[in-house]
């Protein structure tokens, strides 16, 4: 165990995987000698050579197209998209190819050994194009799995699990926590389960749910609420697709209330799916409407970042509204 940050944890997961598997390859824009613009791939080229860790030309659709082919061939393809905002040129390769590779071929071929890593989210003064949280687009895309870690420990364990998973995974990394999230992380290999939410804190009156960087936001809000005497259950969804509805439903059956938080715009964000499912499965148990605390339906504005963010205060207010309904 050592105290390291999330970038180091991710780097370690990649390092372990490249060392274990000769056919594991890391690639993307600037991931080579430079180690990526955030340095998540530092030293990998040095250690494993230019064949196993390399810069690609600047073309996201090519990176994912290449990754699909490489994974279909049987290699472990680990692609980096420099910012989640730049995943959209690769959208066709992901939605029409990655997600449907196994299904359309009747399992003759698959790209299960593909992991796409990409930093997402706001809070770094990135404006419209260095702040987006596009997980909902992929949650509407059967065939891919979507994972978002909340801290260094989770990041390494979930990434190692994603790399073993026989399905393609999009791994969204909360970039504002890259250096900020520091914690005890085992040096060796370990895995945390995909498709399983984690109850971070037990509580009675209201379930508060988020994922990734928003976890620390809701935890802060919950702290405030508990001071008011509101007992909150806190859930980290961890995997967005397929999401662990059972854990969430169990929790809401108990608390009768649900507050969901995400950074992406409200409309048709993943919070909508959670709310729609939970209202159906917990109908008779709900004490108040499910509340979503999300980004508004605007692009991400630089100067009004604070106003835009679904922060702890907005979440705290929502918890109170939920309980006092």
């Amino acid at each position: 165990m050592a105290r390291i940050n999330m970038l180091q944890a991710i780097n370690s997961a990649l390092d372990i995987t490249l060392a274990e598997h000769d056919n594991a390859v890391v690639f993307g824009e600037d991931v080579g000698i430079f180690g990526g613009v955030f340095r998540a791939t530092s030293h990998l080229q040095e250690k494993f050579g230019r064949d196993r860790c390399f810069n690609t030309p600047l073309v996201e659709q090519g990176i994912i197209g290449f990754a699909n082919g490489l994974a279909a061939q049987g290699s472990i393809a680990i692609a980096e998209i420099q910012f989640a905002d730049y995943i959209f040129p690769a959208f066709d390769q992901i939605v029409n190819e990655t997600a449907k590779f196994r299904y359309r071929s009747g399992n003759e071929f698959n790209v299960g050994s593909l992991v796409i890593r990409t930093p997402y989210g706001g809070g770094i003064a990135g404006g419209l194009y260095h702040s987006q949280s596009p997980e909902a687009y992929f949650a509407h895309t059967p065939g891919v799995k979507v994972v978002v870690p909340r801290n260094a420990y989770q990041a390494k364990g979930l990434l190692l699990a994603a790399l073993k998973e026989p399905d393609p995974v999009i791994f969204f990394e909360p970039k504002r926590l890259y250096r900020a999230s520091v914690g005890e992380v085992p040096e060796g290999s370990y895995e945390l389960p995909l498709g399983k939410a984690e109850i971070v804190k037990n509580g009675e009156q209201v379930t508060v749910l988020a994922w990734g960087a928003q976890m620390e936001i809701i935890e802060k809000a919950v702290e405030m609420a508990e001071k008011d005497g509101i007992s909150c259950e806190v859930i980290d969804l961890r995997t967005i697709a397929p999401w662990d509805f059972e854990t969430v439903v169990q929790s809401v059956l108990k608390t009768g209330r649900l507050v969901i938080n995400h950074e992406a715009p409200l409309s048709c964000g993943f919070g909508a799916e959670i709310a729609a499912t939970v209202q159906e499965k917990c109908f008779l148990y709900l004490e108040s409407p499910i509340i979503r605390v999300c980004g508004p339906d605007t692009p991400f504005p630089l100067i009004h970042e604070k106003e835009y963010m679904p922060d702890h205060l907005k979440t705290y207010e929502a918890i109170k509204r939920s309980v006092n309904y």
Partner: protein
Amino acid sequence: MLNPNNVTVSVVNQPHFIENGALEIPMYQVLNEQGDVIEGAQVPDIDKETALRIFDTMQFVRVLDDRMIAAQRQGRISFYMQCLGEEAAITASAAALGDTDMIMSQYREHAALHYRGFKLEQFMNQMFSNEKDLGKGRQMPIHYGCKELYFATVSSPLATQIPQATGYAYGQKLAGKKECTLCYFGEGAASEGDFHAGLNMAAVHKVPCIFFCRNNGYAISTPASEQFAGDGIASRGLGYGIKTIRVDGSDALAVYHATQLARKTAVEDNAPVLIESCAYRLGGHSTSDDPSGYRSKDEEKQFGSSDPLVKFKHWLEQKGWLDAQDEQVKLEELRKEILAAVKVAEVIDKPVFEEMFTDVYAEMTPHLLEQMNELKAHIKKYPEAYPVTSGRIV
């Protein structure tokens, strides 16, 4: 690298523009219109067995296409695409590969699959979406794929297979196998961004990949002249620093030779090659298409003259490798076999209902399990409404 900008360094002091015509890209031909070897042409090394296998495949596909278009008209299958006029381009290129070289195709290249050994009933099972279809009936007719034969499953979105071929070939290189990937696509698909991505990455990362562009003059109704303004697709090869050749796609020998040489470059030098094969798309785009809406019979006559089968047959006969007498009998038999295979395939059961939910993921998720069970109960309630599957739901 010459310098940080990666450009040549010669200098001029007058503004000099490069224009169309600055580089001649001739077309490689071995056979003339009749099928005689052009004087002075280099005939590739090809043995009798290979030559006949190529010819057999070309014939098979010609007859298959003809019969399946008829079957589509009769409403027995919903859709079909033929490769009329392009049989040589596809078959001879596939023939120049090794058995374990990967083929990633667009959709008009079933000849390559047949050459590899895909059986008549396998074609049928796919087209009739029955339970023996390797693709489990999920895709439209002609979307074949077969892992055993190293032929990637066809995917309708155009050009997506191009960067995938680059990635696949990279994996082959990494594994140290002396293998390559051959990627087919049309001149229309070459307009997609994925073409640019795939070729550029292949050149930069030095992968053993042959990019085989079938320039057949049309993308559905769009003529090549409204598709690009350069000299074919070959003129792009230089821009990527990829070795490039243009061949007459109706000339099986030229295609075979060019692909042989390309494979050598790919495998021995770990370098991609671009082949532009020109052969007019003689038929409609698909059975949903009617070319009379956008091109004249005159044009079809003028450019449809050079039938790849006629040419290659003539050459085979001259070599004394083919016995012209058998021809009609053989074709008649083939027709019968195909018709018989249609009749078998169309009555084979369709895939069971559960196959709708498998293969989305390696293992079915709880969500899908729930959805599957709900649907099952529903079908049991209304079996007449879901005749394809209800009979076998227990």
